[in-house]
């Protein structure tokens, strides 16, 4: 029997199923950034970065704390002044055409900052009104979003009385009242429990399938790697890696990790490693063995053979794939 970790259940399988293969991926840039720079006094927060986000993709923008990712997003959405460089969203200059830019983007900040005394419905209608949604369509759009995010029953609840997960959902909903073409999400699942996180990710994927380009920043590297079509990594204000998760994995040659447990008991590490081709190391964890593999297929074949030869049962077998966190640390660490 194969036991999968909670994270792999959440991200590895179910959500992958949600990602349609027929996603129409164009090469057209909906966000273009050229030499974008932000200086705070002598501190170079963002250092002449250039990249492109393609229409209808999920772009994961990652980096350690203080790397410059939030500053970059704030410059793109017009909340922070640009020191140098240019950026366009949907062809509009983010400084010169800031009002047009704001009408095609939705922004979800890292905190759920809607208006506490307004109800869920009032918050969405206010947002729709401010985005210029015609009066006769506001209520319908707000109701659609409340249903889409599973908040219909709470429509008359004040924002301040919602749980953290519900607040997060409503904050995302408020950024969608005008059907934006690009959605900026800053730490969308930060501080949420597994159920709420799963719900939020599912909704983000659904939005993306409906044609919304997603610009995502997250500290949860694992989730970001699984959900994003392409990843940009920023460190010390510079873009240090850009590509699909598979490209980054190949380029930074991350090893894969296999977690295995035998019944009735696990063999010794030294004994097992001799039997496995392609295993770089074997370590005994609490109740399972962790094998770092350069060739995971050979290692899994070797494990099955070893179990048969020694009359053991494989009670756990989990291929974690490229460890996104390890990969991320490697990318950042190489700088």
């Amino acid at each position: 029997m194969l036991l999968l970790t909670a994270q792999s259940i959440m991200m590895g399988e179910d959500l992958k199923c949600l990602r349609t293969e027929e996603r129409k991926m164009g090469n057209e840039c909906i966000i273009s950034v050229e030499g974008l720079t932000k200086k705070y006094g002598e501190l170079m927060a963002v250092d002449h970065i250039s990249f492109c986000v393609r229409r209808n993709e999920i772009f994961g923008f990652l980096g350690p704390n203080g790397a410059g990712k939030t500053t970059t997003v704030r410059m793109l959405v017009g909340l922070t002044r640009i020191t140098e460089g240019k950026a366009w969203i949907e062809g509009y200059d983010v400084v010169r055409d800031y009002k047009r830019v704001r009408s095609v983007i939705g922004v979800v900040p890292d905190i759920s900052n809607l208006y506490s005394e307004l109800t869920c419905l009032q918050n969405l209608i206010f947002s729709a009104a401010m985005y210029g949604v015609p009066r006769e369509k506001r209520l319908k759009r707000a109701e659609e979003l409340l249903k889409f995010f599973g908040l219909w029953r709470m429509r008359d609840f004040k924002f301040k009385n919602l749980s953290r997960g519900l607040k997060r959902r409503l904050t995302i909903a408020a950024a969608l009242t005008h059907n934006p073409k690009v959605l900026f999400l800053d730490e969308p699942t930060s501080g949420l429990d597994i159920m709420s996180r799963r719900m939020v990710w599912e909704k983000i994927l659904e939005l993306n399938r409906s044609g919304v380009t997603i610009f995502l920043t997250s500290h949860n590297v694992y989730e970001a790697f699984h959900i994003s079509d392409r990843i940009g990594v920023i460190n010390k204000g510079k873009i240090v890696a850009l590509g699909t998760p598979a490209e980054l994995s190949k380029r930074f040659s991350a090893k894969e990790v296999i977690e295995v447990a035998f019944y009735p008991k696990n063999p010794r590490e030294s004994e097992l490693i001799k039997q496995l081709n392609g295993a770089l190391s074997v370590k005994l964890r609490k109740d399972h063995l962790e094998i770092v593999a350069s060739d995971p297929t050979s290692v899994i074949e070797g494990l099955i053979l070893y179990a048969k030869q020694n009359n053991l049962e494989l009670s756990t077998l989990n291929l974690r794939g490229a460890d996104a966190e390890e990969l991320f640390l490697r990318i950042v660490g190489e700088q």
Partner: protein
Amino acid sequence: MLDEFVKAGYIALKDFREYYMKPGSLSWGIIFPFVFALAFMTKRGGLTEWLAPGMISLALFFGSTSMSAMSIVFERRIGSFERLLLFPVSYNCISLGKSLSSFIMGLISAVPVLLLTLIVLPEPPAYLLLLAVNIAITTFASSTFGVFLSFLVKDPAQVMIVFNLVRFPMMFLSDVIIPVTIMPQYLVPIALALPLTYMTEALRFAYTGTYDVIPPAISITVSLVIGVLFLLAASEVIKRSKP
């Protein structure tokens, strides 16, 4: 242009729903001016015709500035002010929206004081229509002043302290309870430099038909100009508040 006015109205309505029942708005915006007027009514000499416009001016000033203090400083602290910056509207629209909610609160604050003066004083206001216009101008100028001032304060816990540091001296120096005509000479230039002096003088003329030192044409015009200048200054401050 019309669209921006409408959106400013939405901001005002939202603010009003969100903040009018907050303790800071209630205590400093409504209760304080009313109690202050009551206190003058019960003292020897009572609420005179000269004092009534000052009390109305004070209620308008405290009501509107308390609202802007609450709505702007609080929103900036919790990050929801940035939501406004993300909507496709100009900085003038945000500034106007914030001023409008303060305007509504100022008018509400003035109602009990106005009623009190109408009940207590034997003579009705000299120019009723002009009084209504001057109330609107005074509230507008107080609101934009409050919005501008709110951007100088960051901590909601400090907001009323800072606001009162500005408002209380103005209360004594702006012809509200002490006539400029009996002030020591060295205080007169200060009084004439304060916006509340012009607003109070404009109201006084409409209520009593007389003025202390500033003719109505000047006091009304200056009040209006002050309102517009602070509105524009607040827009500029909002724009510059971006790091």
